């Protein structure tokens, strides 16, 4: 096994030495990859479908890293040093067992795409500076446990893609209306009943845009608009009638709909 890995690392070195793809190689510990430490010029590291349980803090020594893919491992915690990588643009830690993101993670200077799909994250597990990541253009948070999206989401001005598919969201903040560059929004499979009227600012209607909102217990007027089309939904939430109804709905403080999805079978939940 180790000799096979060594050959792959050597192959990488013989090439440009800047990219290392070790997908589905049964790797348990990054530090056990033979010759790994010598790949100082690494720009891309792809370790999807392995058995890695932790990321060593000295990952921060690979100063040229731009892309890290750790999809489908068993990582529970990321090192705080991750945010010091000066060139990191794409980080994919989807399908792991993350219960939190490291302290200070929002300091990543260049991060453009963050994929934390299929973990155990919620609004309580984000670091305080998370929404300082204003270079983000895509944020994938589907299959997590958010019930409330922090209003600071409005600070991610460059966001073009936001995926909140199959969380436990009971409401969206009005600050969503500030994400004017958004052209892809996935909020299907949550517990949403209403949309803030401010979301009328967003341009999500059209052939170049994506707006997925199925599988939510919408109030009847909104559900009716979804029946006739997404453009009708946005026209409706911009109307004064809706603003009035929305205000009354919020003032009534009705109990949110119960959780309807059983997540116990998610592999991110399974304990060692």
């Amino acid at each position: 096994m180790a000799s096979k890995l060594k050959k792959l690392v050597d192959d990488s070195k013989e090439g440009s030495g800047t990219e290392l793809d070790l997908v589905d190689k049964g790797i348990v510990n990054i530090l056990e990859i033979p010759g790994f430490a010598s790949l100082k010029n690494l720009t891309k590291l792809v370790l999807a479908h392995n058995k890695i349980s932790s990321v060593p803090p000295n990952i921060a020594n690979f100063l040229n890293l731009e892309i890290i893919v750790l999809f489908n491992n068993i990582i529970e915690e990321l090192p705080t040093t991750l945010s010091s990588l000066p060139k990191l643009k794409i980080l994919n830690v989807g399908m792991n067992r993350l219960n939190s993101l490291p302290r200070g993670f929002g300091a990543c200077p260049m991060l453009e795409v963050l994929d934390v799909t299929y973990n155990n994250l919620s609004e309580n597990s984000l670091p305080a500076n998370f929404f300082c990541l204003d270079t983000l253009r895509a944020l994938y948070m589907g299959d997590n446990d958010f019930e409330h999206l922090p209003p600071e989401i409005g600070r991610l001005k460059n966001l073009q893609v936001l995926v909140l598919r199959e969380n436990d969201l009971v409401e969206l903040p009005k600050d969503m209306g500030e994400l004017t560059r958004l052209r892809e929004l996935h909020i299907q499979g949550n517990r949403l009943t209403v949309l803030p009227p401010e979301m009328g600012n967003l341009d999500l209607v059209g052939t170049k845009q994506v707006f997925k909102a199925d599988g939510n217990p919408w109030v009847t007027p909104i559900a009716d608009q979804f029946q006739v089309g997404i453009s009708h939904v946005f026209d409706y939430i911009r109307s004064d009638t809706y603003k009035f109804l929305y205000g009354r709905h919020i003032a009534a403080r009705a109990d949110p709909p119960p959780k309807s999805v059983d997540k116990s079978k998610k592999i991110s939940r399974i304990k060692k």
Partner: protein
Amino acid sequence: MSATAGPRRNLFNLQPLDATTPSPLFQRRRVAVGEETGHEANILHLEEDLSATMSLGNAVCQRCNDGFKMDEQIVNSSGLWHTYCFVCAQCFQPFPEGRFFEFEGRKYCEHDFCVLFAPSCGKCGEFISGRVIKAMNASWHPECFRCFCCAKILADEGFVKNQGRALCKDCNAMEKAKGLGKYFCFKCHSIIDGGHLKWKGEAYHPYHFNCHSCGIELKEDAREKDGELYCLRCHDKMGIPICGACRRPIEERVVHALGKTWHVEHFVCAKCEKPFLGTRHYEKKGLAYCEIHYHQLFGNICFVCNNIINGDVFSAFNKAWCVNHFACSICDKKMSQKTKFFEFDQKPVCKNCYDKFPGELKKRLKKAYDEAVKAGKI
């Protein structure tokens, strides 16, 4: 009547306040300066004279009204004075070098006279002796009173008041033209009423020129070509290209693009309206775009490297990828046009990776897919 008219006129020898002729003040002062050598001579002469004619026993001093002692020196200057009474009315000091200035019956040394009565120049602030120019509510040395624009001395030629400035006649005409928003003909130096013709950077009455081709007297719509002026008719007959944006003839550099001709500065990006100025442009549906806006509008920015895609574009899920970056979003395996892939949150996933998804996720994805098909969305 005639007997009384004479003395009365003498009594009230007043000048109007705004008179431009020198006031009696200056006449008198001029006399005093003119006779300055005479004064000294006069004093000396009188001293001799008086020592000889002691018979004037009842003579009194003009200032203190006392008589004179026998051997006392007396000053004779419009009356007799004790030498110690013949002093400046302001500083009570003898007159330096015997020079004094008289005003309203009092005598002053030069310094005090200037301080009290002499005008100071509106430009240099110095006292003026000699000729005074009274103008613009101030006094001036003749060499200090100049045109505001060209600094020509105005004392003898006269001036025109223009917005609180003194101007010579030429400058005034120029300023007036400017103030009216009109041009000043470079040839005949008069204001151009109506349209002007720009020629080598100067404005002219159009009628000073004739068409280089047909000889007709030009109007303001005349045009220049190769250093000659033509009437509009002749100019249009010479086959000059017309700009596709402003519809006016193009006299300088011509841009040929989109099957039309353009002024360099009018051939612009349809989105940001900045001129291309020779940089590459991209055409789409009869419009031209700069590189940035073409790709921004038509979506050819790679989702991975966020750079503009030059060359082949892979498009899927409302995203685009450059050839090098179109790969499985999970294992980074390169994909081609023929590769089959699955959709996961609007990202491409290869079959290998999709097969590794946990069963419960695959079940949910399939359910969502089936519902979408049922609703007619796919």
